[in-house]
C-alpha cells in the first residue's frame, strides 16, 4: 500500500518505521511466491509434449536488452530515492518518471515477446513448458506493471504535495518493491533464459 509516512518522531520499540518493516516482511513473503513459480517452471521446462521447445523460441539478444533495461531502471529508482531523501522533489519526479518509462519499456518488450512466442506456436495451453513459462513471467510482468502504476501515481501525488520530501518514505518503499521485482528478474533471466534445458 502506498502510504505516506508523516508520523515523524513516533517512538517504535525497534526505532524502525512500521511501513518499512512491513515492506520487508512482504518481500520476504514474496520470495516464497516466486520460489514456487520458479520451481514449477524448473520442474516442467523440459516437458514439451506439444509445440516449440525453449531453445526454439527464446530470443536471447532481445531478452538480454530488456533485462538490461530493467536492471538500469533499478539505478534510476535508487537515484529517485536519493533525491527524495535530499528533499529534491524535481529530481525525485524526474527519476521516478524515467524509472516508470524503463519499466514500461520492459513490459512492452514482454508483450512483444509473448506475441512472438504465441505466433510461433507456444500458447498458454500448448504444453507444460508453455503454461509454466507464461505463468512465471506473467506474474513477474504483473508485478512490474503494478510498480509502474505506483510510480506514476506517486509522481502525480508528489506534484500536488507542498512540502518537499514529504513522500520520501513512500518513494523508498516503492523503491524496495521495484528493486525486488528487478532481482526476481535477475534470477528468471538466468534460470529461465540462459540455462538450457
Amino acid at each position: 500500500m502506498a502510504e505516506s509516512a508523516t508520523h515523524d518522531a513516533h517512538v517504535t520499540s525497534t526505532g524502525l518505521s512500521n511501513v518499512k518493516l512491513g515492506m520487508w516482511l512482504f518481500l520476504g513473503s514474496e520470495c516464497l511466491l516466486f520460489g514456487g513459480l520458479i520451481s514449477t517452471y524448473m520442474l516442467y521446462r523440459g516437458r514439451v509434449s506439444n509445440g516449440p521447445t525453449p531453445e526454439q523460441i527464446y530470443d536471447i539478444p532481445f531478452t538480454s536488452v530488456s533485462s538490461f533495461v530493467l536492471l538500469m531502471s533499478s539505478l534510476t529508482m535508487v537515484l529517485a530515492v536519493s533525491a527524495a531523501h535530499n528533499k529534491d522533489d524535481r529530481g525525485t519526479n524526474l527519476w521516478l518518471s524515467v524509472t516508470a518509462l524503463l519499466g514500461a519499456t520492459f513490459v512492452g518488450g514482454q508483450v512483444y515477446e509473448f506475441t512472438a512466442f504465441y505466433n510461433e506456436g507456444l500458447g498458454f495451453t500448448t504444453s507444460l513448458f508453455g503454461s509454466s513459462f507464461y505463468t512465471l513471467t506473467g506474474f513477474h510482468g504483473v508485478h512490474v506493471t503494478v510498480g509502474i502504476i505506483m510510480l506514476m501515481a506517486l509522481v502525480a501525488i508528489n506534484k500536488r504535495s507542498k512540502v518537499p520530501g514529504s513522500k520520501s518514505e513512500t518513494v523508498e518503499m516503492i523503491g524496495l518493491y521495484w528493486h525486488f521485482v528487478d532481482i526476481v528478474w535477475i534470477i528468471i533471466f538466468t534460470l529461465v533464459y540462459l540455462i538450457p534445458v
Partner: protein
Amino acid sequence: MAIIERPAPGSTVPALTPAPPAITPARTYGALRRPVATTGWKSWLFTVDHKKLGLMYGATALFFFIVGGLEAVLIRLQLAAPGGKVLNADLYNQMFTMHATTMVFLFVMPMAAGFANYFVPLQIGARDVAFPRINAFGFWCLLAGGIVVNLAWFLGGAADGGWFMYAPNSGPVFSPSHGVDFWTLGLQIAGIASLTGAINLIVTVLNMRAPGMTLMKMPIFTWMITVVQFLLLFAIPVITVALFLLTFQRSFGAQFFDVAAGADPLLWQHLFWIFGHPEVYVLILPSFGIISEVLPVFSRKPLFGYPFVVFSGAAIGFVGWGVWAHHMFASGLGPVSVAVFSLATMAIAVPTGVKIINWTLTMWGGKLVFTTAMKFAIGLVVLFTIGGLSGVTHSVAPSDTQQTDTYYIVAHFHYVLFGGAIFGIFSGFYYWWPKMFGKMLNERLGSWNFWLMVIGMNMTFGPMHILGLQGQPRRMYQWTEARAGEGFFNLAFWNLIASVGSLILTVGIGLFLINIVVTARSKVRAPLDPWNARSLEWMTSNPPKEHNFDSIPHVHHLDEFFHRKYEEDPTTHTMREVATAEEVLAELERNADKHIHMPSPSYWPLVLASGMPVVALGIIYSIPVAIVGGLIMLYALYGWALEPATAPESDFDSTSNNGHAVGASHG
C-alpha cells in the same frame, strides 16, 4: 506507533465509559466521505479498531464452527452403520471436503486471528495494531473468502476433492462441478487475510511494545502468535502458488496437473504440504499460547521455563518447514527422501514434548483453581499428549504406511486439533470473555460444557484409533460389513460409538452457545480482575476502552500486572497482595496520557474486499464480471491511497470537547 498525537480537548478522560467521539468530515477523500458513525452498525462495518475486528473475526469463526460442526455430524450419522444412506457419495465427498476446509480455514485460523487481534495489542501495551486499515481489510477478505467457498453449496455443489485437493482428482475432468473453483478462489481471498494479518501483527509486535517490554518479557500468547504469523507469512504464498496453478488449469486450460501432457501430480502434493505442514502449527500454536497464559494464572505461578517454551515454539515453527513430506510417505518419494523426512519428523516431537513438560511443571507446586478455563487447559495438555504420541507412531515412516489415510490418522489429528486447538480456544473463551464483554460466562454451564466435550470428544475420536488400526480407510462414504470383522475390535461397534460420541459433543458445544445467550442476558457485570490475572491485557477496564490504556504502562516484569499486585515475602518466599487490581488501574488513570488519538474508520477496506468475490465469480462464470470486480478494487485502492494517513484538523469537529478525537490510520 500508528497513533497520531493530536491535542485533545478536555484533560480528564472518563474512567470506565469512553465517551463517543464526535466527528464531522470536512471534505471528501477519493469519492466517499470518511465515515463518522461511532455507534450502531456503521461503527462495525467501517471500524478499524482492533478489538471490534477481533470480535468480528470471532463471531465469523464461531458461525463457521457451527457450519463445520453440522457437516461433521452428518458425516458421523452417515457412518454410524454400514451402507449409510444419510448422504449419497457425491454429497458425502463434498461434506468431508468442506468440513475440513471450514474447520481449518474458516474456524480455527480466524478464531486465532480474532484472539490475536484482540489481545496482542493489549498484551504488549499498545493502543492499536500497526496498520489498522489493513487489519480491517483482512477481516473483510476472510469473510468474503468464507462466503465464496460456501457459495458453491448453492451453485451446483461444493468442492469434492478433500481439503488436500490432490491433483489430478481436482482437475476439470474429475471434478466437473464448480465446487473446486469456488474453493480455490475463496481460499485465495481468505489467504489475503492471513498474509496481511501476518505482516500487520509482526510489525505490531516488533514495533509497538510498551516501554520496558523486551521480547523476553512478552506474554507467551503474544510470542506464540508471533511465531504463527511468521509461519503464515511464509506459508501462505506457497498455497497461493498452488491455488493459482489449479485455477489456471481449471479456468484457463493450463496443463499443470494434466498427466497426459507430462505433468507430475506430486508437484501439487509438495506445494500443498509445504504450506500444509506449517499450517498445522498455525492451527495449534495459538492454543498453546492461550493455555500457557491460563495455566500460570490458575496455578498462581509463572509459566515454568518461559524461555524454553518460547524457544520450543520458535523451534516448532522452524522445524515445521522441514517435515512436509511426512504427509507423503505413501506417495512414492523414494527411500532417501522418506528417510530424511522421517527423521526430521521425529525431531519435531522434541520441542513439542518440551511444552507438555513445562505445562505440567507449571502446575507442580502451584495453587490450582479449577475454573472452566483451567479445565479446558488441562484437557488440552492431556488430549494433546495423546495426539502427539500417536503422531510419533507415524513419524516412523514404515509404520505410517500402514496408518496413513486410515481413521488412525483421523483420530490423531482430531486429538491434536480438537483436543489441542479447540480446547485451547474454549479455554480462551472462558478466560477472556469477561475482558471482551464485561460479563463472566456461567461457570456451572461451563463445567457441563467441558465435561460433555471431553466425553464426547473421546467417544468420537478415541474409537477412531481402533478403526484405523483395524484398517478402515478415511474418506469412504460407506463402509461394508464384509470388512467389519468380528470380535471386540469389529468396525461396526466402534463406528457406532464414534457416532454417538459426536452427538454428545454436539450437545456439549450447544451448551456453550446457550451459555453465551445466558451470559448476554445476565445483568451481572464481571469484576475488574476476576481471575487474579498476570498480564497486561487485564490492566484495563472490562471491556477495554477504545484506546485500551489510559496511560501506557512501563513494563518491568514478565507478568507485569501480577507483580504490581503482589510482592514476595522475603522470608517465606510466598506472595502477598500489596495492591488490588482497582488500585493498579486507578494509578494508571491518574497518570493518563493527555493526547490520545485513535485511527478513524474507513470505507475503503470493505469496498476493496468486496471487489474480490466479484472477481472470483467473474473468473468462474464470465470474465466481464471479473473486470467489474477489478474496477471496484481499483476504485477502492484509489480512495484508500488518497485518504490521508493523517486526517487534517479540519476533518474534525473543532467545537466538540467531549472526548478524545480520532486521528487517521496508517494502513
